[in-house]
C-alpha cells in the first residue's frame, strides 16, 4: 500500500486527488494497477512530461515502493 497523489489535469481526469493503493510494490506496478481501473488514466500517467516524485523527491525510472511511501504524479508544471 502506498499513498498516491495526482496533480493538475491528472486529478481532473481521475476524479480523485489522493488515494491509498494496495498491491503495488513498484512504481511501474502502481501504474499498471491504476491502468487496470482506468485505461485513460493509465495512459496519462505514462505520458511524456509526467514526472514522478517518491516521498517528495523526483525519481526517474522504476523504483520499489512500500507501505509508507508517497508517490506523486506531476504533469508539466506552470508557475504564476
Amino acid at each position, binding site marked *: 500500500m502506498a499513498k498516491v497523489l495526482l496533480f*493538475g*489535469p491528472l486529478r*481532473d481526469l481521475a476524479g480523485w486527488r489522493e488515494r491509498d493503493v494496495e498491491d503495488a510494490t513498484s512504481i511501474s506496478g502502481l501504474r499498471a494497477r491504476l491502468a487496470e481501473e482506468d485505461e485513460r488514466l493509465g495512459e496519462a500517467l505514462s505520458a511524456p512530461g509526467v514526472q514522478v516524485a517518491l516521498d*517528495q523527491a523526483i525519481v526517474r525510472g522504476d523504483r520499489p515502493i512500500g507501505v509508507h511511501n508517497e508517490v*506523486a504524479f506531476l*504533469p508539466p*508544471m*506552470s*508557475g504564476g
Partner: protein
Amino acid sequence: MIIVSEAPFDPGALLSEFSSGRTEVGAVATFTGIARAECGEASILELEAYPGFTEAEIGRIAEDARRRFELDDLLVRHRIGRIAPGETIVFVATAAKHRRAAFEACDYLMDYLKSRAPFWKKEHGPAGARWVEPRAADHADIARWDKETSR
C-alpha cells in the same frame, strides 16, 4: 523566505518590510505578477501546489540564485487556490549591493517560477475551464540562463 499560501497579499506591504532597515544593501528589485482579466476571457485562475515539495523546490532554486548573483537576501511569495483578476499571484524581491545583481536574480527567479516550479494552473472562463501549460516564451526565457556562462 519562501511562502506558498492561499492568503491574498499586498506586494507593497511585502516590499516595505523587505526593504526597511537595510543600510548595506543598495539595491532591491521586485516583480509582482497580477492575474489578468484578458478582457473577460479568464475570470478566475486556480493554482495548485504540492505542499512541502513546492516550497522545497523553490528553496533549491533560491539557494542557487543567492550564490549565482551574490544576493544578500530574497523573498518569494506565491499564492495558490482561486485568484480573481487584479489580485497578486506572485511576488519576488531580491536585495544586493549593486543593481545588476538584484535585477538579474529577480528575473532568473521569475523565469524559473514561470516554467519549472511545481504549480499547476487552471483558467476558469466563460467558455469553461482549461489547464494552462507554460508558453513558448517562458521556455525561451528560462533557456537563456542555461546557455549563459557563469557571471
